[in-house]
């Protein structure tokens, strides 16, 4: 008899690939209906991405239900991906121009491995696993998403960092031809994010190439994105084209745009308000009421030790 040891951080779902769960009628919103209604009044949504998403084979986790998955239509219809426009329904309407295949990632900095690495060489598609994580946006909405991918640590090990490397820096694609919103000055492009090396090597840090049993849709950061569930969502950078190992703390895009509001660490912290709004509560998409936000998005047991002795009000 195989007794599977379930990690304490594992988000529960008794059968992720069950289609019926994606249309969970117990939800307050009948979200499957929302798209139909919306498309009648919003022509832009009619042009939503029609790319065929391949099913992925992965190791599912044996879990029991604790938190409901967010409806797939919400996870793919309510997005922040400013390169495609700043409204929540802009990415789904505009990402049809993004070409996620073929894809390669430029690797540079303090690593033995350098140059352009194809997606297939960077990610072992025979070793995919599923992670059901909470995602908490800095704007105070949240979701529960079943990601498919590999631990970030496995990718970084492939790059073979030198001992001098202290940080990992990521860049998103910034192509005017593929991204309709790039001409906007809302942020400077390309979108940049970063992690301290120990954060990047932490077991929870994840590179996702799929979700809900299939490849990543464009609006969710195809073909590969970062998922750091204990930090605000903007750190989970999408459509990664470049990974660099550095010894200086990367200047991430949101911190660059407003350093009094967005820092480098951006750990989910219910006790440290954003200057313009409280972080004590959040709206789980699909629910009517609001929830209390958990320290480190509920992953404190696993990650709090990374920040021992750090003043998290100062290093927000």
């Amino acid at each position, binding site marked *: 008899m195989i007794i599977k040891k379930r990690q304490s951080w594992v988000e529960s779902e008794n059968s992720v690939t069950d289609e019926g769960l994606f249309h969970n*009628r117990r939800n307050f*919103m*009948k*979200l499957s*209906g*929302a798209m*139909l*209604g*919306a498309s*009648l*009044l*919003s022509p832009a949504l009619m042009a939503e991405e029609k790319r065929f998403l391949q099913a992925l084979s992965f190791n599912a986790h044996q879990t029991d239900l604790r938190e409901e998955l967010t*409806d797939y*239509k*919400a996870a793919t*219809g*309510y997005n922040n991906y*400013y390169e495609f426009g*700043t409204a*929540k*329904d802009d990415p789904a309407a505009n990402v049809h121009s993004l070409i996620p295949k073929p894809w390669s990632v430029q690797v540079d900095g303090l690593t033995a491995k350098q140059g352009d690495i194809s997606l297939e060489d960077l990610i072992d598609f025979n070793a995919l696993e599923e992670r059901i994580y909470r995602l908490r946006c800095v*704007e105070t*909405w949240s979701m529960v998403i079943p990601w498919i991918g590999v631990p970030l640590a496995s990718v970084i090990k492939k790059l073979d960092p030198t001992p001098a490397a202290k940080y990992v820096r990521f860049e998103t694609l910034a192509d005017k031809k593929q991204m309709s919103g790039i001409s*906007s*000055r*809302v*942020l400077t492009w390309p979108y940049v994010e970063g992690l301290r090396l120990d954060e990047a090597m932490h077991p929870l840090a994840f590179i996702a190439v799929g979700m809900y049993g299939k490849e990543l849709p464009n609006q969710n950061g195809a073909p590969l994105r970062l998922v750091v569930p204990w930090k605000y969502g903007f750190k989970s950078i999408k459509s990664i084209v470049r990974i660099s190992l550095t010894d200086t703390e990367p200047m991430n895009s949101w911190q660059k*745009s*407003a350093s009094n509001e967005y820092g480098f660490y951006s750990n989910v912290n219910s006790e440290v*308000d954003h*200057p*313009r*709004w*409280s972080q*004590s*509560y959040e*709206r789980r*998409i*699909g629910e*009517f*009421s*609001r929830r209390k936000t958990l320290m480190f998005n509920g992953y404190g047991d696993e990650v709090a030790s990374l920040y021992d002795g750090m003043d998290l009000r100062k290093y927000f």
Partner: protein
Amino acid sequence: MHTVFALPLCYLIINWVLLLSYEAHSLGFNPQEMTHHTTGDWALRFLLITLCISPIARWRSARGLMAYRRMAGLWSFVYIVLHILSYLWLEKFFDWHEIWGDIVKRPYITIGMITFLSLLPLAVTSTSGWIKRLGAAKWQSLHRLIYLAALLAPLHFIMMRKGWQIEPRVYAILALVLIAARMPIILRHRFK
């Protein structure tokens, strides 16, 4: 004419009824946020429309248009009240401690509340009864508070959005243009 101003409200009511009946609706995946933004958008649009009416009536010599100025102003106020209600209920769930914290700690909400308070006396004194009670001159002075609201409302919008975004700035420019258009008249009154 009331029907036109009531349309966004009807749209919201119909869609909430649909949503609560588990039917297809157009409020998206965060209907509380959509409601809050929609009421805010239309409050601002109707506020600016209110400011358009006198200049257009004067330019086209159409005094009949002036009858719609109070209607537009009051409907803007209706949407402001709905905007605040949706914040108090759908965002904060009547957590008064948190709400007070927001008003004092978040500048854009402080500005939003000042905008509301500056328009409240205008809504209250919008009737002809009040014009008689106050006298035309005092009433007119009081109602100049709309210029303050026209400046603060777009500012509230600009400060609310993340990063540099064009949409709220367009409203700010429109408001400034409408106020600038009134400057000759205001100055003429000053030096009478």
